[in-house]
């Protein structure tokens, strides 16, 4: 099982996540991504959706261990550095 987080300070509503894993992601009233069901699609699709995000707004964590699956743990710090830079 995975846990999925979307940073709406970063999300630009590109909607690739909704197209890639529609069982997991949907758009809210601001046309930003929101998680409707972390288990709504296979984990592989969720990871693909996270990698496809043009502004790296999606984090995927192992629900049990809390380990970051995307971005992979080494790259997580880079993503932190970009926090709050895009609409």
């Amino acid at each position, binding site marked *: 099982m995975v846990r999925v987080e979307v940073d709406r*300070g970063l999300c*630009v*509503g*590109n*909607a*690739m996540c909704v*197209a890639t894993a529609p069982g997991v992601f949907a758009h809210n009233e*601001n*046309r930003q991504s929101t998680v409707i069901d972390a288990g709504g699609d296979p984990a592989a699709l969720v990871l693909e959706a996270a*990698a*496809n*995000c*043009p*502004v*790296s707004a999606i984090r995927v964590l192992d629900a049990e261990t809390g380990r970051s699956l995307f*971005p992979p743990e080494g*790259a997580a710090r*880079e993503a932190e*550095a*970009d*926090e*709050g*830079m*895009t*609409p």
Partner: protein
Amino acid sequence: MPRTVRATGSSADVDDLFAEEVIARPYAHFVRLRERDPVHWNEKFGLWVVTGYDPVVWILRHHELFSSAVIRGAERAPYPPVLPEDAPLFDEVRAFRADQLVEQDRPEHLEQRRTVHSFFTPTAMEAWRPFVRRAVDELLDELWPRGRMNVVTDLAAPLPVRIIARLMGVPREDMDTLRGLADSILHLNRGESDRLRPLTEGIRGIVEYARPFVEERIDDPGDDLISALARGEADGVFTRHQVLANTGLMLFAGHETTMNLICNGLRAFIEHPAQWDRLRADPDRFARTATEECLRFDPPVKSTQRIVAREAELCGKTLSPGERIRWIIAAANRDPSVFQDPDRFDIGRRPNPHLSFGSGIHYCLGVALARIEGQEVFRGLARRFGRFELEPDELRYQPSIQFRSIESMPVTWSVPA
């Protein structure tokens, strides 16, 4: 319903988007317009001009209301005007641009974007950073001892072509050919009345240049950008002409915009020497936020447009199907309701939710690459160079409403003997 401006001044003052003053200093003009009428009907050109941050985001996120088929559906003559005898060439330009990804709406847009989207993800592009850094280093090492350069032709133009050529997987010895084609395609953004001639030469040139690569890679794909587009044809998403038109798009879209990021950013640093010194003191720390601030402060793309597809209400105005709507990124990026002290150039600004890459489903495909190129150029410059002197008093800009492109930018710096 008459939509004449009656507030202050004549409508011509407010609406002349190509006036010399507006091209040279867009900020004062569009900020005044935003304060007065953030969703404004421009009588002179017959289009909506949107300058407020929130309405721009709203438009960008409601793609079903606003069509991207701006060129495909265009019945207007080119502006600024072209030679009457060149009119047939405009049909050729239109046919080329109409087949590009940026002109499509859903559902075709999603299907087509998917063919190249994963090529450009932040993770995929990060793998190219060392290559970009080397390309920047090579160029700057060569330029530094000279003590002078024209930023446009010596730095900003050659770099993006070198990088996109590598991403496309074309031979290094073709660089000059590709650079020549890219330069011709830049006429898309010029004002000269005979510009369609070099432009169509560039379009025919890139189509002919790319054709054998596409043919070869449809059967034997690699991990390059042309292969990704060719796979789109193999999968039935693109026609051959669409593959070729999008190859041209990748060459142009990554060229003009990156040039403007480099030139406009360096201009901002020259005019704000304290911020330049701040970057120089710690380039690794500030390269990212400084690039974002350059993008916000003087964006490469000033403005973009759509066609209203369904009736919509925006800030009390009714937008009707078929009307053109253009938003001014340069004004939205200085909206004080979002950016504190918006006219201040601050390379440490955070958060910085500028709209220079757009928003919504058409959000810039090349964003991750553009960021890396900007970061590596400003970092590389800050590590080597002291203060730059701008030679002329006044920089001239291409007469374009879409792009903020400096025509020529000679700078000098002192080189220790």
